[in-house]
């Protein structure tokens, strides 16, 4: 799995593509099954480190399935699960379902945007997908996780957290920031050790 580092705009965009061999395996698994396109796109996206579908991948899948890129693009932009831009290292999804809404999930969302120093205005008409400038966090919303008895609900890196409030949210974010700092430190140490040797 190769990583291409490319500087774009103000960000250091690290693009990541799933190897073609892996994509072929997924295609073979679901070929000619009902809903094959959805299943293939979902699994290929999961294999991508930054959980998104680069244009190259989309075109490749189109060629293999003999479906025009425009049609795949229509599917990818129609369903909210598919991302065309990479996610940050950690993905926070706030549930905006009715039960969570009556328990003030909107304030939780606004608090999160504020706490992460995100400048953009949130417009809930459109899909919310905001990544922090340091690429550490992506904030998204979902219409409903179906965990209404646990409202307000939040998902962090695939794990569901129940009965959320701003305190818990703060603690979780700080925990991740701490862990990331440790990781970076370790990486630096390993690099400097490598250099020494």
């Amino acid at each position, binding site marked *: 799995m190769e990583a291409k580092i490319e500087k774009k705009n103000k960000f250091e965009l690290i693009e990541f593509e799933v190897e073609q061999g892996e994509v072929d395996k997924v295609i073979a698994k679901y070929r000619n*099954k009902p*809903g094959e396109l959805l299943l293939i796109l979902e699994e290929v996206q999961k294999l991508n480190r930054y959980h998104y579908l680069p244009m190259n991948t989309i075109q490749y899948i189109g060629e293999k399935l003999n479906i025009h890129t425009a049609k795949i693009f229509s599917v990818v932009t129609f369903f909210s699960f598919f991302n065309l831009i990479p996610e940050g290292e950690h993905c926070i999804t706030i549930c905006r379902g*009715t*039960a969570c809404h009556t328990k003030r999930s909107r304030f939780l969302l606004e608090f999160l945007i504020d706490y992460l120093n995100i400048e953009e205005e949130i417009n809930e008409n459109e899909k919310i997908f905001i990544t922090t400038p340091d690429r550490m966090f992506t904030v998204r919303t979902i*219409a*409903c996780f179906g965990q209404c*008895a646990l409202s307000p609900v939040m998902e962090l890196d695939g794990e569901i957290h129940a009965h959320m409030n701003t305190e818990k949210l703060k603690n979780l974010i700080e925990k991740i920031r701490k862990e990331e700092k440790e990781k970076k430190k370790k990486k630096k140490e390993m690099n400097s050790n490598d250099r020494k040797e």
Partner: protein
Amino acid sequence: MIVKNSKMLKSLQEVGFKKIFSENVRVTVGVGTCGTGNGADKVYEKLKKDIPTKIKAKVDLVPVGCFGCCFEEPILSIHIPGNPIVLLNQVKYYNVDKIIDFVRHKEIPEDLALCKIEEWDFLNLPEKIEIGKNYENIKVWKELPYFGRQEKIVLRHCGLINPDDIEEYIGVGGYSALDKVLNNFSPEQVIAEVEKAKLRGRGGAGFPTALKWKFMRGAKSEDSHKYIICNADEGDPGAYMNRNEMEGDPHMVLEGMIIGAYAMGATEGIIYCRAEYPLAVRRLREAILQAREYGFLGKNILGSKFSFDIDMVEGAGAFVCGEETALIASIENSAGRPRPRPPFPANKGLWGQPTNINNVESWSNIPVIINKGGEWFSSIGIPTCTGTKVFSLVGTVKNTGLVEIPLGTELDKMIFNIGGGSSSVKDIKAVQLGGPSGGCIPKDLLSTPVDYESLTGIGAIMGSGGVVVMDEFNCMCDIARYFVTFTASESCGKCVPCREGLPQALKILNSVCDGTAKLADLDILEELSYMIKNCSLCALGQTAPNPVLTTLKYFLNEYKEHIIEHRCSAGVCQKLFQSNCTNSCPLHINIPGFIQLFKEDRLEESFECILLDNCLPASTGRICRAHCNVKCRRTDIDGAVSTRELHRYIADTTYAKNKDEAIIKKLIIEKLPPTGKKVAIIGSGPAGLSAAFYLLRLGHKVDIYEKRAEAGGFLRYAIPPYRLPRDVLDREIGFVEQLGANFLFNSEIGDKISIKSLKDEYDAIFIAIGAHLDLPLRCGGEDLEGVISGIDVLEKIAKNEPAGIGRKVIVVGGGNSAIDAARSALRLGAQVTIAYRRHKWDMPALIAEIEEAEQEGINFMYMVSPENILGSNNHVKSIELMKMKCGECDWSGRLKSLPDGETFKFPCDTVIKAIGEKVKMEFIKDSGIEIKQRDKIAIDPLSHQTNIPEVFAGGDFIIGPSTCAEAMGEGKNAAKGINIFLTGKDNFNKLFKKFFYKAEVPEEPESGNRNIPLELPLEERVQNFKEIVQTFSKGQAITEALRCLRCDVKKGDEKT
């Protein structure tokens, strides 16, 4: 192993059954997603690790689905063979050691137990299973109010069997319905059975399932492929029934589908499950593999000629794919856009071939219909809507979770009996059914039965089963906006009404919540909604306007309040309220403002700031119920801010320094020019005084008719002086006098002075007579001497007249009036007992009052009700009391109190009735004023106008016995309405002024815990009516003021 015939299935059933009810102790942990979200997975892991090392005997540790009782998760069950299954609730990681200890000794930790199951009907087995009887101290599950009215048919396995083990499913009779069908039924007979059952689709539309199957059966396929699809794309926010059904019992869905495929001649099946349910997807995939392994899917099922298989497709986050043609399109590798119907999927569906789509729950009902018969099924529920339905009861209700009830049960049984009523301090206001496609039902329609027709009759729909309860802290305009935001973003974009219409509706709703909308916008919104409803291509657009239309119909007042008053009483729309406290206060006192002025040592301005909104600041400062504290943000830190005590201090200090004189003089000078209009106010209680305060300053002439000899209403004649001293009350009533009110005492409206006669003399009339009649006890002996009304007692004491209090007094009631009467009687030398029919925590009286009464030596008897009053020589000698027990939850959110059968006599010589007050309505007759049902007068909620244009009404007379602040708020609003009526313009704002003070927000919460005012010591109290609670000291007031967090300061205010 392939199950080839019925005999093999039967022996496998016996094996499976023995797995569940084996000789070993069986411990199950509910690891559905709800349980896991609450830590059930940690509990399971610890048990898995520790049981083998700590317990020698073999223990079956089994992961199961969810029992439906979500508010008690994580749930763990222990079954010791021969005994009932016991469910433990809210099991935490640190409880595990204790549990293992008990299990090792084959015992149950009863203090952790929620309920027990002694017998269970798996419905697919020939008989009920007797599990065991024991554990007297643990309630049977059906005795819990949450389960009492539920009937588990669809959910009968969830939480009891391991969903990942097909043998456990077979053990409880699984796949026996399939076996029965393949051996004994023709496809047409299957459909006939479903028709007998009168099953209606559970996805939301309620279409007769058998009819749909008939269409499919009769349709011809061009390439001999026919498909059935299970719609598991449960997208309604707030609904998760299907998730639980799939996670807890995936095989039931499969069995239903296989039977359906046989009946309709389908060749392939697809389960379309939303990807947001990873556990459900995993369980279904696993179940499909196992079903294939055992031969229930694939070729020649159970040795028959029938072959069938199922594939899984995952959705990808599009709500519209729950619509059948959109779902089909997404399986065909297109974007999920609906297609026009006809042609219907039964004729031309997936890949152009006949396709039948049913919801998860519809499929789940099929096996039991086959095994128990369609007739049995149709005997449950009501004739037009048979069977049960699973609902997800969420929102501001105490007991949240999945509830399975027979269709036709009334909604209030679900909300109050099962749900336990409101989970917050506020009442339930509305119930949202059916998700974004559904409607909001107001509280007074809650006795509507839950069936398709009754609900569409009131403008709602049943939908897939989501029930979201809302309280008075939810703003209905915001709720409508929320749903339209959702549907607008989920719109597929194909048709103009939905694609263009919904964003336009959203624009209007946003402007309502912003305070920039106009009243005419509501007409446009309604018209737009009907257009979208009638012209959209698919059900998403056709039902998206439902929340808007129902909120406009049932909650129009909230819309008007937002638009005309620029206020959001629920405290949700940020631009329409200043701070939670000001918003909750019925008088909307600028609380952060007067506190800040006080902090800046500007006492007179602080007093004026309060006075402009509240003309009785020191009186309310003693007796107000502090509505401001309900949402005070400081509560989450270390207690609410003592706003009431603060404005009492400010008023008391101002009076002590006589600084109020100048301020009142100023108000008199600032009175608007005389309008020449005359207003008659009937009643000089808080509502009347407050209305007078504003009407006089607006330049009108005011005459106040009071039936008693002095002004004040309940403030003087019901609230005793030890709570509200007379000199304080007199001084503040004086303000209204000085402003020019003309009091006519001893003038009761009735024969001599009638509404009609007043109409001739005055330009407007405001009726504010309060609620002064005590409710009768309705027991024998009420006409004996010594049985007196609490209100009368308090009035006589206030007039210094003999009140008829004996030596041994019993007060019946639990509100503030009962406590006031009791404590007053105590001060007159009696021995006093209060008898209340519910528990202490259900008493409506203020907790502080109850505690003070206890300290002063009043006895309390709970759970008793008067049965008969006995006397001799026509005077009370004793009262016969009936012991009460708790029944189901009633509409107040408290448990009903029901007679237990046992009575006892309590000797006494005085019985004081204080169980509630009602309004005297006689004088209204012949006045022409419209009376609604239950003796309530119809008024316009904003202007307080009755059906007679010049007659207005407000206060307890309209809203029933309530609080002083609420009554004053009514008076204030009525004054505004009366002024508009009299002058044709709204210059109410001229009576208020803007105070300028710093917009300083404390960086950290200052000042520590809440200040408690000093009280008169017990010894100095009880023989007299001296005031008990003292005013704050200066130090207390200053530190208390510093505790305010200044929630009113908004971003950008600091610059002004």
